[in-house]
């Protein structure tokens, strides 16, 4: 009986909590993507409690919000995911007059193709996608991985069979192939996509696996020599490898054909309870000191001029964290629905083929 009473009490408490939750602000993001000092700064200003709600994959988040889940005040999501949400009418338009700190953002990151006037999204942080490699091993082979050719051309692949990983993400692998072919990495032209598919299918027999989450561990343990990589992962790996005294050297390099960045944005879903608090939150995270702490703690690249000025040059001078030549840097644009289905199907087929080939090996 006591348990039942406790349950009833708890449910009542929950109900009360939800209906009077005016002083709670809900952020939807991935873990460790906002620093404690920023949380404290915001809580002091809004006189409220910031709740962090987590998702692991932007597409899962997008699926959940588009199905109609509500209660979130601000979401930090990747470009193509928020673009879809906006088209579905799940995001509020932003009045930039309420976010004065937008002036801190590097102009190159405002006005993205998916949102030219920043009418619904504000850039938060980004991660370039490039190749990380075991310098000691690749030096022996005489390979400099400053071109996407090293993961697509036979003459390189044959020397590194089974030592390469690429992301488990169709967008990133197709973009790399299209860049190598000299095409638009966001191309939805069927001919381009077919060329990319053939290239990937051929190269995939030399790749070890599709991996976007544990590849840096394999780099550290020496099992993988060349990996498609995110800047924050490689940054943390290098910090770690200093202590571990590795028998080899790990490095990263941008590709001369160009690189993609995954840009995460602040957006406000239509379910926001208090727009002013939402604006206050966005304005707070764009402050120089908060953006700096984000860059220091996570290794993510911050498109914030004040942060770049304050961060140590040992970070800001690294080309694969803060690329110099922005002409060669591309963001993702959402595919039209038909193309998305097509690429998804092709991707599944490519992965199946690799599995068969891998088992035969």
């Amino acid at each position, binding site marked *: 009986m006591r348990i039942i009473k406790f349950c009833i009490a708890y449910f009542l408490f929950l109900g009360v909590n939800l209906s009077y939750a005016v002083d709670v602000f809900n952020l939807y993001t991935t873990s460790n993507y906002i620093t404690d000092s920023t949380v404290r700064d915001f809580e002091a200003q809004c006189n409220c409690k910031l709740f962090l709600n987590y998702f692991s994959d932007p597409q899962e988040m997008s699926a959940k919000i588009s199905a109609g889940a509500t209660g979130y005040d601000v979401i930090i999501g990747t470009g193509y995911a928020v673009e879809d949400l906006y088209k579905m009418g799940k995001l509020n338009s932003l009045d930039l007059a309420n976010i004065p700190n937008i002036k801190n953002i590097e102009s190159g990151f405002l006005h993205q193709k998916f949102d030219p006037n920043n009418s619904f999204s504000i850039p938060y942080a980004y991660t370039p996608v490039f190749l990380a490699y075991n310098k000691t091993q690749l030096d022996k082979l005489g390979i400099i991985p400053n071109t996407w050719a090293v993961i697509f051309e036979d003459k390189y692949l044959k020397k590194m069979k089974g030592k390469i990983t690429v992301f488990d993400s169709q967008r990133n692998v197709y973009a790399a192939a299209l860049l190598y072919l000299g095409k638009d990495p966001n191309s939805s032209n069927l001919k381009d996509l077919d060329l990319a598919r053939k290239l990937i299918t051929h190269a995939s027999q030399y790749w070890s696996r599709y991996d976007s989450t544990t590849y840096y561990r394999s780099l550290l343990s020496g099992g993988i020599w060349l990996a498609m990589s995110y800047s924050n992962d490689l940054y*943390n790996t290098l910090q770690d490898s200093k202590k571990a005294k590795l028998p080899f050297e790990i490095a990263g390099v941008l590709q001369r054909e160009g690189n993609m960045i995954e840009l995460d944005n602040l957006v406000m879903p239509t379910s926001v309870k208090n727009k002013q608090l939402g604006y206050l939150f966005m304005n707070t995270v764009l402050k120089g000191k908060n953006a700096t702490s984000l860059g220091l703690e996570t290794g993510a690249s911050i498109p914030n001029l004040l942060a770049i000025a304050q961060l140590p040059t040992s970070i800001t001078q690294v080309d694969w964290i803060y690329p110099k030549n922005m002409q060669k840097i591309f963001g993702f644009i959402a595919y039209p629905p038909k193309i998305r289905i097509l690429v998804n199907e092709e991707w599944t087929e490519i992965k199946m083929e690799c599995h068969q080939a891998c088992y035969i090996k």
Partner: protein
Amino acid sequence: MHVNKISKKILLSGILVYLFLYIPLLLLIVYSFNDSRINVGWVGFTFKWYSVLFNDTQLIDAALNSVFIALIASSISVVLGTLAGVALHKYKIPVLSGLVMIPVAAPELLVGVSLLLFFLLINFTLGTASIIFAHIAFCLSFVTISVKTRMHGMDDSLIDAARDLGASPTNAFFKVLIPTILPGIIAGWLMAFTLSLDDFVITFFTAGVGSTTLPLAIYSMLKMGVTPEVNAASTIIILCTLVLTSLSTKISPQLFK
């Protein structure tokens, strides 16, 4: 002589099974003291991750939330599941027995999304309560199956005998039936508890604001890297389980014979 040989082989394979089960857990505990963020290879000894963990109120809240949800969901589903299991044994309706299997066999993603759509349809606020209901929905089948299987092995004449000897239906149920199928009920409860504790997909879709569970918190770390803080949290959970199991063997030894 022959018997001895066989029992030695059994002992050996028993030891191997235990090694197989416990070596990963042991490694997980050892690596919670590793002074490395990426946690590949041993770097140095530190208690750092435990202090990080104890200052991480979000993760602790998520863990407590998980345990709370698992306790409530498994307890409710064990009551409902036992009743359903007994009923299914008594009234043999093949369609219903088949339907019980569907939540076990259906892909989690499908169950998660349909529960989300259902909650939105009836305008039910997503939160801890919706997670509990969703967990009951899929744990129920496991308990029912476990109880039903146990009922199959039971001698039905036991109930008749109890009734002949003057027990009321309620008395026969609580004093004869329940004690006989208790191992099935406990197994079902344990299964429901663990399933609820570590479910990710269904929880993700049915969670509302402010109701993060431990699996949600851990999976969402993938993007920024899973640190040994998670090892530290797991170590504490393993220790708690160890203490609870040894306590319960003390309290009711007959359960574990």
